[in-house]
């Protein structure tokens, strides 16, 4: 249960948004919409507790995320514009390290299977630097399939993906929702997803 109360964000001397309210129960997802520069990325970073809001509060199951700290962070996964994949490492190594960081036990076979599911079979051992734009995104997204986190915060997850990969990712998100997960995402494209809440900035 994620709730936001009266959130505001200020950048420079511009107020990007204020008075944002929403609440998401398990199985619900939120589509953050808005023009370029409306403040979607900024909102997502605030929800991920990476930067503090200028005003307002975010609650997770009724408790403020500032108090929860690490307990909250352990339950979320945030994938942003950046890759968070090392260009020198292969997708496999990247995934294994991410699992370590997340304190998830993951063996090579499982990791390889996850990558194959994301269409990277045969590229598991090629340094990410050589991958195409879309393949890089896939290597990143493979983490979604591995880590057990309840709250997914995804910033434009569909960029650079081809049609097949978009379908795959949508299916993954649907399954996560069906299992009682919560998803917050931004996207300029229309998505093949069950109806969710929408928030316009």
């Amino acid at each position, binding site marked *: 249960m994620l709730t936001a109360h009266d959130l505001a964000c200020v950048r420079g001397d511009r107020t990007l948004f204020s008075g944002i309210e929403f609440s998401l129960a398990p199985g619900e997802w939120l589509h953050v919409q808005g023009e370029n520069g409306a403040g979607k990325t900024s909102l997502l970073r605030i929800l991920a507790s*990476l930067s503090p809001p200028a005003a307002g509060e975010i609650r997770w199951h009724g408790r403020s995320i500032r108090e929860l700290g690490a307990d909250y962070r352990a339950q979320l*996964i945030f994938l942003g514009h950046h890759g968070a994949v090392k260009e020198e490492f292969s997708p496999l190594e990247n995934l294994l390290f991410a699992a370590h960081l997340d304190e998830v036990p993951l063996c090579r076979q499982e990791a390889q299977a996850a990558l194959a599911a994301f269409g990277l079979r045969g590229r598991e051992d090629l340094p990410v630097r050589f991958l195409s734009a879309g393949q890089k995104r896939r290597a990143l997204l493979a983490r979604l399939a591995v880590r057990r986190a309840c709250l997914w915060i995804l910033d434009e997850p569909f960029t650079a993906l081809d049609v097949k990969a978009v379908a795959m990712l949508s299916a993954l998100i649907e399954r996560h929702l069906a299992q009682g997960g919560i998803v917050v995402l931004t996207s300029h494209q229309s998505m093949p997803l069950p109806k969710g809440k929408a928030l316009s900035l």
Partner: protein
Amino acid sequence: MNALLSVIRRDLLLALRRKGDALTVLFFFVIVTSLFPLGIGPEANLLRKIAPGILWVAALLATMLGLGRLFAPDHADGTLEQMALSPSPFGLLVMGKIIAHWLTTGMPLVALAPFLGLLFDLPADALFLLTLTLLIGTPLLSLIGAIGAALTLGLRGGGVLLSLLVLPLYVPALIFGAGAVEAQIVGLDASGHLSLLAALLALAVFFAPWAATVALRIALE
């Protein structure tokens, strides 16, 4: 603890993957040291006198150059963000990165220093002491440097700003480190210098990772 080890392992692997990256810090150390005889002239006595100072300054500059790679790549590709969001304590991960930095930068310097000392015709006991001071001193340099690297993260022209911030803080390490060797060469007792250096290290081990972690969280906002 597990996460700490995994960060260290990953960073070591990364250093290995970026072929010869750690090696080039070493070469930098060697080249700076050997530039001085070229700039100053070949008088053996003069060179012996200034050898500890030069080796220490070269080690310091080499460490400093490596600092740019401590957090910046992880910041640029978003890994640092993920570390901050990880369930493992962020401070521990930062500590892991600092340790890995020392293992790939400081330790090779320590191993190489005695050979470079030979080039300046230092006596055996001075060589030993030089190595010992560097062994205590280079972790100190990595720890202090981590604060500077974290503070300048993501800033334009960070590389040079970093040196501006960090070099003044390196002064005590330099003075005690080079001072110990020089004291011994002129026949004085070096243990005072050494214990002060060790005390500084103990202080830094406690405070530097904490300060670096706070600075990193700020940089990520």
